């Protein structure tokens, strides 16, 4: 009987998950060709990008606040101006920008994107606006033995995961070991610590690194490339022919007036201002902003998680199946799937139905996730309260609600306090996952600072210290409250 029920519950959970997936996939149908009209009606062009890829897009620190700049930013500014609309930049991680276009979170995506055949299956591309070519970065020490792309086969090569560079290196250097990482700054660090011997990268990016880091040297690639693969283009939803045509007009004009070299000069200038002072203190406002967001998300997620967790725990313990089964399914699904996937589902999946800002989506996702864990802790706490307490309440005539409120829950919370504390600490740390949808929390700011300053390690240490101080303060506070809760 027990086994049968378990099995049934699992089947139910899978069905619910399937249903949710079905809803989201079926509603994200391909866009009609009214995208251009929609942008003009709204008066806003929403662009998804990841500002950690100089010289294409990065942030400059003006002392008070930061601003997205770079070649790509100049290009979308020009396009927005030509369309006669305002520009709105949606910062997020690079792996999310194309999804943002597909799900309507943004109108277009830019960011040194190579229009590969694989990508063309899910989005449409404008004409190529920049053709920089491919290059490799090596350290000065390595350069003594490794001077050109011809010698590369057999050496360890690092590239960003899911990029053109990765695919090219894989086809060309069959004897080499390939290492894929998410961030350019991580690859440079791997290069310097000899985890990889060469780093495959877009030429202007390589040039930027060489200018800013005296330890690095670059050389040209020897790939045989069609311009489709080397150039970079702007992504728009499938079927938006008129939008693409409008963007191509602007791109043609940019080419005719040789604006690219001017944009590149601007970008180089901005990069110089960034690297004038690369001390972490100079970037304190980045870290402070990240700290504020991490704190905000954690506090709201903990409060929402506790409230929702109590409700879920009581539902799961209910004798009525109509209450207990939804709670059981919910908890199973949330605990059985990675938080990163949940964050993406709330932001992009729910985004098909309601357009949530990244911060709201992040807070909701972390809250929903923590509620499942907290509810199990609370349920354990309620069960840990002696049966006699319930019987005494009942024999005094207290109804179920009063017994819970005055007798059971206060004791349950005291019993589970240390476990709850652990969960709160986990929330602070795990909330960092929202950086993938562009919430400017500590980890997000960390990557921005690393990209801006070309310093691989120092920002990591700063962020580590900030996280540690937060969790340490929390632990202290929880211990203090635990001592106060002793009944004497």
């Amino acid at each position, binding site marked *: 009987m027990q086994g049968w029920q378990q099995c049934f519950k699992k089947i139910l959970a899978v069905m619910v998950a399937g249903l949710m997936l079905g809803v989201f996939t079926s509603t994200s149908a391909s866009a009609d060709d009214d995208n251009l009209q929609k942008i003009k009606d709204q008066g806003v062009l929403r662009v998804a990008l990841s500002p950690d890829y100089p010289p294409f897009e990065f942030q400059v620190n003006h002392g008070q606040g930061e601003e997205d700049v770079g070649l790509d930013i100049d290009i979308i500014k020009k396009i927005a101006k030509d369309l006669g609309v305002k520009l709105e930049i949606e910062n997020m991680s690079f792996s999310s920008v194309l999804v943002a276009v597909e799900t309507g979170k943004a109108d277009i995506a830019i960011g040194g994107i190579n229009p590969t055949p694989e990508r063309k299956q899910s989005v449409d591309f404008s004409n190529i606006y920049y053709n920089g070519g491919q290059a490799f970065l090596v350290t000065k020490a390595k350069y003594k033995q490794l001077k050109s792309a011809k010698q590369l086969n057999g050496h360890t090569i690092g590239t960003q995961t899911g990029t053109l560079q990765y695919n090219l290196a894989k086809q060309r250097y069959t004897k080499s070991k390939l290492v894929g990482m998410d961030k350019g700054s991580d690859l440079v660090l791997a290069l310097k610590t000899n985890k990889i011997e060469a780093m495959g990268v877009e030429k202007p990016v390589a040039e930027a690194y060489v200018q800013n880091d005296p330890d690095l040297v670059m050389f040209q690639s020897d790939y045989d490339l069609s311009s489709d693969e080397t150039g970079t283009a702007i992504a728009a939803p499938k079927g938006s022919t008129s939008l693409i045509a409008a963007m191509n007009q602007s791109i043609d004009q940019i080419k005719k007036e040789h604006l690219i070299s001017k944009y590149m000069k601007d970008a180089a200038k901005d990069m110089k201002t960034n690297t004038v002072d690369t001390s972490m203190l100079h970037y304190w406002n980045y870290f402070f902003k990240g700290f504020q967001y991490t704190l905000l998300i954690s506090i709201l997620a903990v409060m929402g998680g506790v409230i929702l967790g109590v409700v879920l725990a009581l539902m799961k313990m209910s004798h009525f199946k109509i209450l207990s089964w939804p709670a059981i399914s919910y908890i199973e699904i949330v605990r059985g799937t990675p938080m990163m996937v949940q964050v993406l589902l709330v932001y992009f999946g729910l985004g098909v139905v309601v357009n949530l800002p990244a911060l709201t989506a992040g807070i909701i996702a972390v809250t929903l996730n923590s509620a499942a864990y907290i509810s199990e802790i609370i349920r354990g706490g309620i069960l840990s309260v*002696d049966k*006699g*307490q319930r*019987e*005494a309440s*009942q*024999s*005094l*005539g*207290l*109804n*179920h609600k*009063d017994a819970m409120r*005055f*007798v059971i829950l*206060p*004791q349950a919370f*005291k019993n589970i306090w240390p476990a709850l504390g652990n969960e709160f600490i986990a929330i602070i740390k795990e909330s960092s996952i929202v950086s993938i949808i562009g919430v400017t929390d500590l980890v997000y700011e960390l990557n921005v600072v690393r990209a801006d300053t070309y310093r691989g390690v120092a920002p990591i240490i700063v962020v580590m210290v900030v996280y540690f101080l937060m969790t340490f303060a929390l632990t202290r506070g929880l211990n203090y409250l635990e001592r106060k809760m002793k*009944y*004497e």
Partner: protein
Amino acid sequence: MNEPLIKIEHLQKKYQDNLVLKDINGEVQPSEVIALIGPSGSGKSTLLRCINQLEKPTSGAVYFQDKDLTQATAQDLSQLGEEIGMVFQSFNLFPNMTVLENIKLAPMRVKQMNEQDAETTAMQYLTRVGLAEKAAAYPDSLSGGQKQRVAIARALAMHPQVMLFDEPTSALDPEMVGEVLAVIKELANEKMTMVIVTHEMNFARKVADQIWFMADGVIQEKNTPDELFNHPQEAKTQDFIQKVLTI
């Protein structure tokens, strides 16, 4: 004789295949004190808990005045708490509240008494069990005997018509048994209706009007203390009385 306050008819309780109570019948008159005695595992506590529905009987009926409690709704049962007080072997005080708060809670939440009145009532019963000076203490700082006296005061503060005692002195150190029994004895003198599960034979003999002797899930014999202890009729009763009196 008056109408009985509690009437038990053909009560059965089964846990899976284990029949713990077999066809129990009995009546409790107003102001009567019943002592339930018998060997461990004979079903005394289960019977007591079936009276106020902490255990759901498998079949049969328990009438309080004219109401069949086995058919009562959750709301009716909440009212039952006002009428039938219960004292447990392990006290079951609420450790997250002071002594005074323990006693005040039910009058305020169930009887909707205002805080002032609830406090007056609570202090009145605390004084009666001799623990007025412990009002602000937490239960964990009290001795076992004090805890049980607070538990009695807590039950009395609801002005119940019947008090059920489930082995009220079994968890106490020997030197504390007396103070608790004294409180119960005083209640008997005040004509409180009580059903007491106990292993204190001398106490049962002195305080009870009727003794119900239980063994194997059946009430083997009901009688006055003198008759039951001096002239037990059933073989099982004789066997039990002989054992406890030779100790």
